[in-house]
C-alpha cells in the first residue's frame, strides 16, 4: 500500500506541474473573444448614465450611440443576443460590482418568452469561458455548476476546449459597435414577410421559477441602488401582445416605468424595417431608438 500511495503521490505532483503549463491558455483566451464587453465590465470601463440590458432585442433594436445623441446622456449597450434573464441578472450584478452605477437601465424585454422556458435564449456560458482568468468569472461558473472547486488550483479544470482553439470564431452577428450595440445591417433571405395577426395565450403557470427569481433580482438591484428602470417593449412583426405587457406590469416598482413602442406606427408593419419576425434591422432600430429617446426626454 505504501508503494502504491507513494507512486500515486508522485504521479499527482507530476500532473500538477504539467497542469500549470496550461496557464498560458487561460492567459491568452481573452485575446480571442469576439465580444469583449464582459471584460470591459470586469475592468470597470463601463461608467455610463444609461445602460441597455437584455438579449438580442436589446442588442439589435436599441442603438446606444443614437440614444446618447438624442438624450444627451452617455449610453452603453450590454445586451447579449441569445441570453436569458438569468444571464442579464449576472451582467447587472457585474456592472454594479465593478463600475459606477448608472442612472437609468433600459431593460429590453423578450415578448413573450422573458420568463418562459425556451431553448432560444439561455445562460451564455460561452461568453464567460474566455474570461476564466478572472476569479470572479470562475466563481460564477462554479455557482452555475459548470465548474467545480478544483478550478481554484487546477488550470485544466478552469479550461474548456474552446479556450484551446486560440482563434476568433466570429460571425456576421458579432458586429459589436464601440457603443456595445449590434445593428443588423444585412438582409435575411429566409425572412417571410408575413405579418402575424395572432398571439398565443400567456400562462403564468408556464413561467420558470429560476427566470422569475432572476427577474425579481434585477428589480431589487435597481431599487436598492436607486436606478430608474425602464422596461422596453420592442416590436415583433406581429400584432402587439397585450397579455405579456399585462403580466410584466404586475412587476411594477416605484422606480420602474414601461415604454411600449407605438403600435400604430406603420413602420412596424413594414417588413423592410425588420430582419426577422422578432428583430428590427438597423433601419428599424433607428426608428425604435428615436421613440425610446423621446420617451426618456419626456420623462426626465
Amino acid at each position, binding site marked *: *500500500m505504501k*508503494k*502504491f500511495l507513494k*507512486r*500515486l503521490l508522485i*504521479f499527482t505532483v*507530476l*500532473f500538477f506541474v*504539467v*497542469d500549470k503549463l*496550461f496557464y498560458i491558455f487561460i492567459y491568452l483566451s481573452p485575446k480571442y473573444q469576439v465580444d469583449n464587453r464582459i471584460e470591459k465590465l470586469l475592468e470597470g470601463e463601463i461608467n455610463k448614465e444609461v445602460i441597455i440590458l437584455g438579449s438580442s432585442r436589446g442588442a439589435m433594436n436599441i442603438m446606444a450611440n443614437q440614444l446618447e445623441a438624442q438624450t444627451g446622456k452617455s449610453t452603453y449597450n450590454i445586451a447579449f443576443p441569445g441570453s436569458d434573464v438569468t444571464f442579464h441578472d449576472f451582467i447587472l450584478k457585474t456592472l454594479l460590482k465593478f463600475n459606477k452605477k448608472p442612472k437609468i437601465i433600459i431593460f429590453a424585454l423578450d415578448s413573450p418568452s422573458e420568463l418562459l422556458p425556451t431553448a432560444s435564449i439561455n445562460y451564455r456560458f460561452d461568453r464567460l469561458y474566455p474570461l476564466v482568468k478572472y476569479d470572479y468569472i470562475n466563481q460564477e461558473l462554479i455557482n452555475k*455548476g*459548470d465548474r*467545480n*472547486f*478544483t478550478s481554484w488550483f*487546477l488550470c*485544466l*479544470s478552469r*479550461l*474548456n*476546449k474552446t479556450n*484551446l482553439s486560440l482563434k476568433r470564431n466570429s460571425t456576421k452577428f458579432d458586429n459589436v459597435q464601440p457603443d456595445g450595440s449590434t445593428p443588423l445591417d444585412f438582409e435575411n433571405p429566409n425572412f417571410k414577410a408575413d405579418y402575424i395577426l395572432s398571439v398565443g395565450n400567456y400562462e403564468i403557470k408556464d413561467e420558470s421559477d429560476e427566470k422569475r427569481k432572476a427577474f425579481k433580482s434585477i428589480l431589487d438591484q435597481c431599487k436598492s441602488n436607486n436606478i430608474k428602470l425602464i422596461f422596453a417593449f420592442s416590436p415583433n412583426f406581429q400584432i402587439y401582445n397585450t397579455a405579456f405587457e399585462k403580466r410584466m406590469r404586475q412587476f411594477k416598482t416605484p422606480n420602474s416605468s414601461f415604454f411600449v413602442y407605438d403600435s400604430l406606427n406603420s413602420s412596424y408593419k413594414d417588413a423592410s424595417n425588420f430582419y426577422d419576425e422578432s428583430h428590427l434591422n438597423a433601419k428599424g432600430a433607428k426608428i425604435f431608438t428615436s421613440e425610446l429617446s423621446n420617451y426618456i426626454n419626456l420623462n426626465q
Partner: protein
Amino acid sequence: MLFNSLDFALFFIVVFACYWMLQRRLFGQNALLLSSSYFFYACWDWKFLFLLVFSTLLDYFSGILIERSTHKKTRLFWLWLSIGCNLGFLGFFKYYNFFIASFQELLSNFGLHASTWTLQIILPVGISFYTFHGLSYVIDVYKKRIIAERNFVDYGLFVSYFPLLVAGPIERATHLLPQLKQKRTFDYQKGVDGLRQILWGLFKKIVIADNCAIYANEIFNNSDHYSGSTLVMGALFFTFQIYGDFSGYSDIALGTSRLLGIELLKNFSFPYFSRDIAEFWRRWHISLSSWFKDYVYIPLGGSKGGKWSQIKNTFIVFLLSGFWHGANWTFIAWGFLNALYFLPLLLLNKNRNHIEIVAKNRVFPSGKELFQICCTFGLTVFAWIFFRADNLSHAFNYIEGIFSSKLFSLPEVRPSNVIVLILFFISIEWFGRKNNYALENFALSWSASFRWGFYIILLISLFIMGSKAQEFIYFQF
C-alpha cells in the same frame, strides 16, 4: 453521484481509505461497503432505497426458505413469490405506462377510446440490474447450484455493491459471494491495474461518448433536415457513443472494484471487432447475454429441441433482451433485428465459428476478416438506429432519409477533432484487443517516463474534452 463526477471521486477516496484501514476485519470491510453502497444509492433518490432494501430482504429470506423446504411445492412457492415480486416491481416501475399506452393505442385502432390510466412513475435507478441479481440468486438456490446465504451483510453487498449497483455488470452469486467471504489484502499490481482501467473507462466516457453524443443528438433530433450521408454519420456517432458510454462505465466499475480487491465479471470484449453477429453478442454486454442464456434460453430448452426450438428460443431471448432495455417498441425492434441477424448463423450452424479474438497471433486482420468485421459493424450500426430513435416512425424515417437523398455527398456534420479521436480510440482498442481491456498491457513495455506521459495525456484530455458530468445511457435501463 455519477462515476465521472467529482462527488464520486471524493466518495471513493473516503471509502478506499476506510476500507483498507479495516484490512484485517472482513465483516467490517463488508459492512462498510454495504453502508457506502446504500449511501451511494440514496444519493440518487433516498426513497427508492427502501425498495432496494425490500427487494434484498425478499430474496434473502426466499433463498433461506427455499433451501429449508423439503417439499417441492413449498420450494416452488417461495421461488415464484420472489420471482413474481421482483418482476412485479420491475414491471410496475418500468413497463406500466408502456403497457397502458400500447393498450390504449390498440383500442383506438378499433375506434374505441379508453380513459387515461397512465401514472407519473419515476424509474428507480438500477432496478433492472439489481432485480436480475436477486433473480439469479434465488434461481441458483432453487436449482441447488449454491447454498443460501445466511449472512445478510454479505448478501446485501452482493445485491447492492456500489460499483455495479446502477448499471452492472450483472453479477452472479457464484462469482461474487465467495469473494466477499475471502480476506482481502491490498495488491499493488491490482491497484495499479484498477487505476489504469478507470482511466481508460473515463476516457471512453468523457472523451469518446460525450463528444460523439453532441453530434449524434444533433443529427438524430433534426434528422429531417440532414442528408443521407449525414444521417449515416449520426448513426456512426451513436455507435461509438453507446459503446464508449456503456463499456466506459463498466471499465470504471471493474477498476473501482479491483482497487477494493474484488473482481467483477467482464462486460465487454471489443465487440466492434466481431466477425459475425454471434461473436458480437458474446462480446457485448456479456453479463446480460450470459444471464439470458443461463436463466431464459437454457430453461426454455436451448438448442436441445432441434433447429426450430433453437430459433424460437433465440428470438425469445433477443426480444426479451430488447424489452429489458426499455419500455419502447424501438428496443423490441432492435432485439428482433438482432435475432434476424442471428438467424442465418443458426440455420448454417455457424454461430460458434469465432470464439477467439480476431487476428489473435497477428497485428492486422486478413482481407476476409476485415470484410467480416466491416459487415458485422455495418449491421450493428443499422440496428442502433432503432435503439436511438424516439419511436418506430422516427427510426423508419431516419432509415428512409439515409437512402433518399445525397447518400454519397459530403456529410454536413463532420467534426474532424471527434473523428480523429475515434480513430485514435479504435487504434488503441485494436492493439489492446487480446487483453481484458485495451489499456491493460498497453505501454507497459515503454519506459516509465513515456508511460506516465501517456497517462498524463489521457488525463489532460479528460479535462479538456469534458464538460459537465453527463449521465450514462444505461442508467435509464
